[in-house]
């Protein structure tokens, strides 16, 4: 799995539960890729920031 595929799954994981094989490959990639771990956190931050900015 490369970073592009990883970031796609990180996004999709917010709308659906990943299959076991997807989860396994993603976790393996994340364990060696700090940039994708940061991306995962950014995707978690986005709704928090959006709501904080617009809903106070």
């Amino acid at each position: 799995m490369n970073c592009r595929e990883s970031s796609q799954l990180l996004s999709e994981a917010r709308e659906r539960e990943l299959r076991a094989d997807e989860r396994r490959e993603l976790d393996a990639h994340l364990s060696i890729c700090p940039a994708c771990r940061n991306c995962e956190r950014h995707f978690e931050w986005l709704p928090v920031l959006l709501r904080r900015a617009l809903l106070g």
Partner: protein
Amino acid sequence: MPRIHGRAPGAPSGGVALEHDALLAEIAGHRAGLLRIARLQLRDAHLAEDVVQEAMLAAVRAAPTYEGRGRVLTWLVGILKFKIVDALRARARAPIPASSAAEGVGADDVDALFDASGTWRDKPADWTDPSHRLRESDFRRVLEACLTRLPELPARVFMLRELFEMEPEEVCRVAAITRNHLNVLLYRARMALRRCLEARWVDEPAGGS
């Protein structure tokens, strides 16, 4: 004024905990904030005005039954959400311009973020809480600017999902898109937003204006 029947969606029923006049004043005080959300969501200033007007009218009518649990703004945003969804549904019945029908299917913007092997060109940085880096008004301005830079459809579905916390299936129904298309649009919106925010927050000095 048009008569709005029934209880506003999300309006709690029961006793009155807030002074009625104070509640009406608070509803009025949130107008600018609601308008900001509606404009970002609809990208049509007149329609946004209409929708906010309708939401506030519904809130005023529901005010006698408002219990005062939770924040008034949260209650108002719940009402606004229904009005926005109604407006989007009404607009979805109109012919969709070719430009917006094709919008969101291109992958050029995502392509540019990765090299040929699918590795980040600019690696996502380690953010600490980015909202603490800027004053509240600047923080909101940056976020609004980044949202406005997104094409309309990805921005809309992103806000339905992440601001209004709608289920994916519901977003698909409102936006009249498939689940696969939704995944693509949300991915595109998230990638563009994280990059836009990072460029403006991380590269701007802390507390910058």
